């Protein structure tokens, strides 16, 4: 897209100054600099939230907490206390387990109201490791900038989820003929009368997948309130906007979903757009594209000239398994991509994998290098940002510059 390309060139031109002046991982007296172009870029890591540590506080109420990129330097499972938090509306801060019910209704044979025990015994207990990523992850890095939560790249996390299949819960009520979608709602409700509730729906074929869960545990611990106690939806490979928290209503729809958060927002253009464009066609933002990050070095770091250099990072395939990661140079003149070695595939297609690559000898500055992930469906990270007015689904190659000394 033209807007993205222009800004990309501007970024390269400014690499020697702006990028180095604001290293993305710099910690400044309890503040973290997210390196958001044009700022404001500093974010506090206080106040502390129960069950969390060292998180970037984007908003207090309803909470928006981002993981510093340092969290991703090791391992592939994100600890619960470093898992990002995102609420659209205020959630209750107290939930009585015995009182909680999940209503299953709409286009069903027999509406039911289920207790937590009913849910837990609805079917086989299933575990899956999957990346939870906000559709707006990296929005704050958009150029030109767009409004909304100004995330860096830390609104993502990978956890093991335990629960039962959504289809087994649906079977308690029986999906009626002609059902098209399954709409999900939680206990979080708007502050103002008449404002749209945060409800989301997924197509029936997605809802019936063997790996789409009603989950009660993350990394073998009960879901904390911040992550949707007592139950949340898990849709591996899809952005977390569909992973409805504090699940309390499952509504089977016989038609399309006209509600605000499906029909009017969390959508992105089907055509190339630039700032100011209006009335372009959009579709819901659903499946995640591949992404990857260099985690061993921050932008602006100094490396030893004449020595070998090992770079490490993480990668995800998104809605399909990761196929490869390559190290790429700046722009189209960046030379041949260098294949990277993938770490073990311990957790399946929807988890992070680590990667590493060793360059035999650093001969000079490594300008605007980045990692490029490709998944098994052939989707790859683009060289230029696919700019969109809501800053959704960022997966441009993330680049850093290393100085040789």
């Amino acid at each position, binding site marked *: 897209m033209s807007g993205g390309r222009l800004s990309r060139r501007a970024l390269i031109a400014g690499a020697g100054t702006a990028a180095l002046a604001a290293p993305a991982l710099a910690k400044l007296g309890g503040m973290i600099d997210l390196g958001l172009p044009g700022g404001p870029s500093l974010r506090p890591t206080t106040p502390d939230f129960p069950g969390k540590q060292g998180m970037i506080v984007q908003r207090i*109420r309803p909470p928006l907490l981002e993981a510093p990129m340092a969290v991703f330097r090791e391992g592939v499972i994100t600890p619960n206390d470093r898992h990002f938090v995102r609420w659209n509306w205020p959630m209750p801060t*107290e939930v009585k387990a015995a009182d909680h019910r999940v209503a299953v209704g709409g286009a069903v044979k027999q509406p039911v109201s289920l207790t937590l025990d009913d849910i837990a015994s609805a079917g086989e207990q299933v575990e899956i490791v999957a990346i939870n990523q906000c559709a707006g992850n990296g929005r704050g890095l958009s150029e030109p900038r767009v409004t909304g939560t100004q995330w860096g790249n830390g609104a993502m996390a990978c956890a093991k989820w335990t629960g039962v299949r959504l289809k087994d819960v649906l079977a308690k009520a029986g999906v009626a003929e002609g059902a098209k979608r399954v709409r999900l709602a939680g206990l979080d409700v708007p502050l103002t009368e008449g404002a749209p509730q945060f409800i989301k729906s997924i197509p029936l074929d997605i809802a019936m997948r063997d790996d789409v869960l009603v989950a009660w*545990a993350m990394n073998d611990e009960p879901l*904390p309130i911040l992550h949707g106690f007592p139950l949340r939806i898990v849709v591996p490979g899809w952005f977390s906007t569909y992973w409805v928290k504090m699940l309390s209503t499952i509504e089977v729809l016989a038609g399309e979903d006209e509600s605000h958060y499906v029909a009017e927002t969390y959508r992105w253009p089907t055509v190339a757009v630039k700032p100011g464009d209006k009335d372009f066609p959009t579709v819901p933002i659903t499946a995640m594209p591949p992404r990857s990050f260099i985690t061993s070095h921050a932008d602006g770091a100094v490396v030893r000239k004449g020595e070998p250099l090992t770079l490490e990072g993480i990668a995800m395939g998104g809605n399909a398994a990761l196929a490869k990661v390559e190290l790429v140079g700046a722009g189209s003149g960046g030379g041949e991509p260098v294949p990277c070695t993938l770490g073990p595939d311990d957790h399946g297609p929807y988890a992070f994998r680590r990667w590493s690559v060793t360059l035999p000898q650093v001969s000079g500055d490594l300008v605007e290098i980045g990692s490029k992930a490709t998944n098994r469906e052939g989707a790859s990270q683009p060289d230029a940002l696919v700019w969109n007015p809501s800053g959704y689904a960022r997966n441009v190659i993330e680049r850093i510059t290393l100085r040789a000394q």
Partner: protein
Amino acid sequence: MKVLVAAALTLPLALLAGCDSPPTVSFEDASLTLPDDPNTLPEGPGRQAVMDNCLACHSPSTMLQQPRVPREKWEATVAKMVKLYKAPVDPAAIPQIVDYMVAVQARGVDVPRETSP
């Protein structure tokens, strides 16, 4: 928060439990105390209008962390809050809210704190 998920959730015990005894899960009540927002809005004309009309839903931090956008975007943002999210904003306060946000962004203020760390 105190919630117990049965030990069967951990892998070794799940294996020991065998296939014929379904894993059991028990749910306990959960609660959470959210921290207060230590951030404050910087002084300036219109600050009171913002406090009266915006703070119920938006932490000062959220407002102050937005990228610098033109006046028209702030006008559209306030209009969206009223129309879509039914925010009870006093119409007479809207120009003051917009003036304040434009002025604060022009000053490039970073989030001020009530107490120094």
